């Protein structure tokens, strides 16, 4: 297993891939991709998820669903690092004919678990996977990343109610709580607080962590899914645009690519 230092160094390299691929595409969502990096790195490289790039559809695998599909760049960068796809593909993001669509597309990239992009659906899809695993007595856990803006969607709470009722303890949701959605800060549009209480009230096992402290992220993911009774939600407090000073908490970079100059500055900061 990699050390926390090694995972942090990998996180930096993933961040470089993210800004480079979005810059090459000329469009994309850096803010919500950068906020999810430590979570994704811990899942794929911290011995959390049982996965194998040589057997991407293995029946005992754990599954990952990117419900907040606009963070596709962080998923692609991690999949390339893990050997599921060639790193040469990364600069083709969002280009005609590329398997790396603007939002994840199962038909174009069959190693994915599902297509996403229309918000609010990933937990329901993950529930279907969790139920299938339970019926077949498979060990697989289902990890789902949702955005904090995304949980405005009513379907999230339909799914939360269902998973709590059915004690889906193989279901782990990570809320990337970076505080912003497209238009503005969450608290100006729909205040989510008290967020932990909401999930607890739906009968979930709740953890609140610093989503950029690799040891905390890793520790929480290790503990997740160990409840015999409940699904787990990890509310990861994150910073939108994390790692690039001028993107941090700057909602301009929710859905905008860096210019050439900005890219150079970002890469310098991520050395």
């Amino acid at each position, binding site marked *: 297993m990699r050390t926390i230092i090694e995972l942090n160094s990998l996180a930096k390299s993933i961040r470089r891939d993210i800004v480079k691929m979005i810059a090459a595409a000329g469009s994309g969502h850096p803010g919500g991709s950068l906020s999810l990096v430590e979570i994704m790195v811990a899942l794929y490289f911290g011995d959390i998820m049982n996965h194998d790039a040589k057997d991407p559809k293995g029946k005992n695998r754990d599954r990952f669903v990117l419900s907040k599909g606009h963070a596709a760049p962080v998923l692609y960068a991690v999949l390339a690092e893990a050997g599921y796809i060639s790193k040469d593909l990364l600069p083709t993001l969002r280009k005609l004919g590329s398997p790396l669509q603007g939002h994840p*597309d*199962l*038909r174009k990239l069959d190693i994915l*678990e*599902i*297509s*996403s*992009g*229309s918000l*609010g*659906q990933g*937990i*329901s*899809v*993950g*529930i*279907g*996977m*969790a*139920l*299938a*695993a339970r*019926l077949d007595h498979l060990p697989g856990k289902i990890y789902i990343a949702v955005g904090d803006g995304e949980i405005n969607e*009513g*379907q999230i709470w*339909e*799914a939360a*109610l*269902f998973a709590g009722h059915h004690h889906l303890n193989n279901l782990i949701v990570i809320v990337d709580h970076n505080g912003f959605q497209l238009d503005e800060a969450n608290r100006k549009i729909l205040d989510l607080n008290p967020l932990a209480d909401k999930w607890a009230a739906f009968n979930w096992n709740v953890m609140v962590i610093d989503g950029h402290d690799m040891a905390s992220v890793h520790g929480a993911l290790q503990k997740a899914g160990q409840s015999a009774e409940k699904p787990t939600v990890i509310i990861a407090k994150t910073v939108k645009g994390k790692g690039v000073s001028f993107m941090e908490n700057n909602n301009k970079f929710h859905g905008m690519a860096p210019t050439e100059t900005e890219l150079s500055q970002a890469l310098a900061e991520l050395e």
Partner: protein
Amino acid sequence: MRDIKFSKATRQAYGEVLTVLGETHPEIIVLDADLSKSTYSNYFQARYPERFINVGIAEGNMVGIAAGLAASGKQPFASSFATFLMSKGFDQMRQSIAYPNLKARFCGSHAGISIGEDGPSQMGIEDLALACALPGFTVIVPADEAAMQSLLPQVLEINGPVYIRTGRIKSAVIYEAGTVLKIGQASVVREGRQLTIATMGLMIGESLIAADLLEQEGYSVRVMDFHTLKPIDIPGIRYMAENSEAVLCVEEHLLDGGLGSIIAREVAKIRPLPMDFVGLTDYAESGTPEELLKHYGLHAVNIADTARKLLKRLRS
């Protein structure tokens, strides 16, 4: 005049056939959104409780769960009223089912205005337009019990999503037990030369009565059951277009985006003919099924009236 027999509703036939299929297909998982006694998915639940999931009144969540099951190699069949399933589950069908092209199956019951007294909020009259709008979907409307017995097992083999429409009231018996129908292939239920009535579901019985009425007046009328709206049967439409002088489409659905619009598009490409359309243009109201069909122009008498006008247009 023919004596039309009525037998069990197609929703009940769905529940029965699905339960039989469950025996040999352990991958079938049935979901419902708190209407299992009305959609008859409760038959499956009674037999295979471990493979039945009642998601509660949450259609969007149900469609999403069906996607996850299908992505895990299961064969989900999710049911609710047609209007709730297709309208409330539409974005989930688009994003999580059609776009990844998953093998998930959906059954919308209580389609059309013939549900009666419950009124328009419960009537599925846009469901076919919505399902047909989704790329990769197969859309079928079995007319009666025999049609369900023939068509539903074929659904298991379709490599993509399927929408199945069923009705609340007893259905006119169109097919003898054991009749073989094929998904994607329309069925000629009555031969004739001048006019073809292209229809489906509950409207086949009404169309057959209308055809008999017209025959008494000297017209020769064919009735075809387009039980598969998508993919539409192009050879069937070619046969109809090349062997008719006019086509009348009849459906218990809004005219916008329904069977008539699909058939008109294909007829226009193959051999343009005079056409007319019987269907709905607005929300209906409460009443008995019989009253509603008459009031909203879907009764055999209304169909015969429209057909007569179309045939007279040909002569002038």
